[in-house]
């Protein structure tokens, strides 16, 4: 994508907008941008922004997550080795709140990208707006996976396993709520049983062992947070059909940060575990009588990062794509991650800003449009 920047930065022109006068648009870099990165994808997420910022002619200052600062430090070392001019791509470590407020106030910084929690995304968006800065602020998520009665379960279940349990559920595109559509109890039961069976077989252990399918949570604190949600779900009356607290870890490892996949059913949309981002390996299964009710449930949630449908019907899929208010829509896709040519979209409380990261939107974010009107005597 970045290597195609010259083409993507091209403006456009119109000859003779009035007699003897031509008009054209050029895109120019703005100066310095900043990037505040999350812990869960310490390498990938900053690269949603950095190549675009640099290739369009800007400089960038990256603030990695304090929980995982090494990856970006290593990357900076590689840029030095590659011969980047000093200061073009910089890194600053420290407290997120202190550094982000410095980024917001600093007159040389023209824009900020942020990926993290919704409260912080909202605050950065609001504060940066006061200083006239551009912002891409990606917040939390609660992604719905809608399973239609005509879904091919054999192919759907592996996709859902990756969606709910990949990265131990610590990603903003993870499936969180599965909505099984229809009043067919037999299909519902088959889905829940197959889902639980597959989830129970996931091998949990050391993440760098390639036989392992799910690693630990990022910290003890993260595990405590997820445990709190599991307890909350039980307290609210959800039925725990697969209890990840009963640990089955491969190898002799301390259990501080591990949890096995958890599955709840009998979930009501108003429950806390159906609404808040758990950021862990917990699936909540609920039912909807039809696609419209499923969409209403999705719309009742504050987030709008992604939503997916599993179906064999093109008509139902199109209806879903048309109606659902979520930035990234999956059709028989569990992790709706746009590739670099497309923007990483997001709506509602999952995104604050106008232009998104990646794709042509990122080109517009990192450049200023300048219109030239010319006449020669």
């Amino acid at each position: 994508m970045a290597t195609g920047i010259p083409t993507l930065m091209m403006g456009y022109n119109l000859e003779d907008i009035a007699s003897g006068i031509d008009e054209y648009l050029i895109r120019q870099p703005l100066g310095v941008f900043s990037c505040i990165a999350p812990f869960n994808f310490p390498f990938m997420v900053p690269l949603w922004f950095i190549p675009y910022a640099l290739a369009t002619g800007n400089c960038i200052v990256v603030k990695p997550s304090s929980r995982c600062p090494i990856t970006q430090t290593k990357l900076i070392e590689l840029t030095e080795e590659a011969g980047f001019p000093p200061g073009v791509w910089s890194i600053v470590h420290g407290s997120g709140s202190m550094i982000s407020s410095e980024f917001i106030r600093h007159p040389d910084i023209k824009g900020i990208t942020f990926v993290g929690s919704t409260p912080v995304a909202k605050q950065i968006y609001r504060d940066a707006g006061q200083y006239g800065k551009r912002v891409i602020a990606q917040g939390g998520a609660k992604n719905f996976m809608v399973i239609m009665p005509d879904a091919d379960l054999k192919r759907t279940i592996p996709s859902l396993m990756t969606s709910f349990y990949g990265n131990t559920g610590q990603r903003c595109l993870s499936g969180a709520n599965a909505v099984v559509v229809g009043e067919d109890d037999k299909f519902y039961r088959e889905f829940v049983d197959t889902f639980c069976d597959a989830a129970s077989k996931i091998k949990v252990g050391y993440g760098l062992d390639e036989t392992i399918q799910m690693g630990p949570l990022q910290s003890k604190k993260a595990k405590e947070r997820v445990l709190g949600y599991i307890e909350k779900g039980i307290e609210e009356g959800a039925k725990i059909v697969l209890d990840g607290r009963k640990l089955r870890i491969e190898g002799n490892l301390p259990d501080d940060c591990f949890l096995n996949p958890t599955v709840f059913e009998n979930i009501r949309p108003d429950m806390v575990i159906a609404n808040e981002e758990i950021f862990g390996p917990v699936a909540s299964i609920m039912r909807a009588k039809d696609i419209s009710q499923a969409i209403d449930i999705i719309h009742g949630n504050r987030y709008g990062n992604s939503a997916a449908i599993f179906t064999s019907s093109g008509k139902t899929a199109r209806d879903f794509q048309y109606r659902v208010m979520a930035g990234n829509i999956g059709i028989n896709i569990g992790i709706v991650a746009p590739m670099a040519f497309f923007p990483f979209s997001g709506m509602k409380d999952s995104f604050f800003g106008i232009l998104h990261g990646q794709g042509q939107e990122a080109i517009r974010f990192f450049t200023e449009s300048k219109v030239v009107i010319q006449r020669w005597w």
Partner: protein
Amino acid sequence: MKLTTASQVVSFAIETEYKIEAFYKKLAEKYKDQSEVFTSFAKESMKNKTVIQRTYQGVVSDALETGYSFEEFVVDDFIPDISVPEKASLFDVAKRALQVEEKIQKFYQIAAQMSGGLLADVPQTFERIASRIDKRKESLKSLFK
């Protein structure tokens, strides 16, 4: 041995291609008359290894269904016997090589079927390698004559 992740399947394939390369290099060394054929097979194994690695790095990512695609892919039957008996005739080693090719071809065919849930590049790569093996099998069979 049961493989359950795409990463394991790719590692198994790469490791096997290395073994096959070593096998053919040994044959090329030992059977000078057929050195060219065996050397080309060894080179092709390394090409296969590169293609698999590129496909994996190019299209297999955490975003896709990598972790759970290969439900219990038992590969014990596909581990080739690459030993070369000291006094084996060309006929014997060609026969052994044919068995090696048949095993690895079967592995790629099943891997292609089982990776249908991944991006199409993955099964296509496995299929392409499997079909290329047909040519190698033909060449080996000609050594029997």
